[in-house]
């Protein structure tokens, strides 16, 4: 490794690692030059035991698993390459991916569609929600290899040119976000929810699942339950529920905020601040 030149391995050497850390390296079979290289990279002492364990594991697995054949294969280093032809936001795409690559990483890294967000990468937050063949799914837990022939819609595919999807417009109108990181997932989820309600699908909030009908009108409780796979750390939930409700019910509701008009700004500037002299 060129980037190790100049690093004094004595300083970051094995002398400064704990017995636990030593055991981890031994168990993973990292010895000699490989061990010194790893320690140089991880700047031992600056990482905790947990991070050390992970780094060592990555290193060991990487060292063991990349075969020479893979390095010189026509797929330019992609081991276990899988070719995936599918449609994304209406356009045909063909990509070659490592079998481990998630749909989320494929969208973001290979197709430059960075609207879908990586929140937890563990299926717990919903920020990566996209619509595959009409159903909302988690793109972080979907392997790209399983998407051959499928139609994927991301948040980038919802608007028609400059014309926002009604759900996008409603999220703005009802202040359905603060930082915006979970918003693409929230919106994809909400768009799919509309079809689910149209089809009459039940939820955990449905009082009697034996009663079946299509074209459901959802209560706030139903919307909260049906959106429960999308977490919002800013807590914009009231705005999200209001936005989904307006689009789902088709009944326009008043916005709770608006950008100040020029007149309102002028009026605010002219208002004298009255100081209460008794304080």
């Amino acid at each position: 490794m060129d980037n190790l030149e100049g690093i004094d391995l004595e300083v970051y050497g094995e002398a400064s690692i704990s017995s636990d850390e030593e055991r981890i390296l031994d168990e993973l079979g990292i010895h000699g030059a490989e061990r010194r290289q790893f320690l140089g990279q991880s700047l031992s002492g600056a990482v905790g035991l947990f991070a050390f364990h992970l780094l060592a594991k990555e290193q060991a697995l990487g060292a063991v698993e990349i075969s020479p054949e893979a390095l010189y294969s026509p797929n330019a280093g992609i081991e276990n390459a899988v070719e995936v032809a599918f449609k994304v936001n209406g356009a045909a795409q063909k990509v070659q991916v490592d079998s481990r690559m998630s749909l989320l990483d494929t969208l973001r890294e290979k197709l430059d569609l960075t609207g879908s967000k990586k929140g937890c990468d563990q299926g717990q937050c919903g920020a990566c929600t996209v619509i595959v063949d009409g159903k909302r799914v988690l793109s972080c837990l979907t392997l790209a290899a399983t998407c051959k022939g499928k139609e994927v819609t991301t948040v980038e595919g919802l608007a028609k040119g400059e014309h926002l999807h009604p759900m996008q417009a409603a999220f703005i109108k009802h202040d359905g976000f603060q930082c915006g990181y979970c918003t693409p997932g929230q919106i994809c989820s909400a768009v799919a929810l509309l079809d689910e309600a149209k089809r009459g699908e039940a939820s955990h909030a449905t009082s009697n699942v034996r009663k079946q009908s299509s074209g459901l009108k959802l209560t706030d409780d139903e919307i909260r339950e049906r959106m429960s796979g999308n977490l919002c750390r800013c807590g914009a939930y009231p705005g999200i529920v209001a936005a989904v409700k307006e689009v789902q019910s088709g009944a326009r509701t008043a916005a709770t905020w608006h950008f100040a008009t020029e007149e309102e700004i002028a009026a605010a500037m002219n208002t004298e601040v009255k100081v209460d002299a008794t304080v």
Partner: protein
Amino acid sequence: MRPFKYTEASDAAVATRAVAANPEASFLAGGTNLVDLMREYIAKPNELVDIKPLAMSQIRPTSSGISIGALARNTDTANHPLVRKDLPLLTMAILAGASPQIRNMATNGGNLMQRTRCQYFYDITMPCNKREKGSGCGALEGLNRMHAIFGHSKDCVATYPGDMANALYALDAVVKVRGVDGKERSIAINDFHRLPGTTPDIDNSLAHGELITSIEVPKNKFAERSYYLKVRDRASYAFALVAVAAALEMDGDRIKHARVVLGGVAHKPWRSAEAEKALAGKPANRAAFEAAAEAALAGAKPLSHNGYKVDLAKRSIVVALERAMGVTAND
């Protein structure tokens, strides 16, 4: 994630042969549990055989009940008109689990195959006999408020986190499995999952390479009176602290048959023969429900931080049975 070879199965025979031939191979269906475990270096298959292309997603009536394909998605199963009408307990249980996105991906067979797990299983810096045999159990003396009060061993105190299976236990389902030799065998659902004993690394009774093809649910008379109650730390999208699948069949004003299955209390769905026996022949009232709840929890062995589950389970059983009877006054 460890590198793996990915293939799509063209038929069930090829799929089972491929997995059976490689001890480190796995079937891939919805992937909602497996891919997550692989990313955390807990599951480390070097080959995945994608079975989603196989034609095993039918849900259809049979002469003896309803046959549910192993590859039918959870969402489609919960919303199938036949299931909603005749097996509402199954619909309710599925809809109580995970999130809409995950239910859209997850299959019924995969749902049964999800690992019994706890946070120590997920934390690779902690000991866990399920993840690494012989390394010990971090939860036994650790943070175990989510853990088992029944059927645990000193080697593992984790709970089965699924909901769908709790309903299937109440409904006496049978799991149909295709062996490597191509022969089918049937496993009563109660024998499908295992208690931990000294081998918590083994969650179920399938041999490597065996493939679930369908779940058969026999006809029953519980559709009018069943309820799935799930008590959790937040209103949705969380594992159960305690869950109850309750179903009653009446004979006049007396209970003819009862089903009580507890979730979140053991390494597998915990069917309470004691509660069911206590309810048989009794009138469906609060006193009978409370007696059944006492009987169900008599053998509970709580750990250091989950003693609350005993009372919680008792109250949950009463509420679930009342709601199964259509009583909602105590909401």
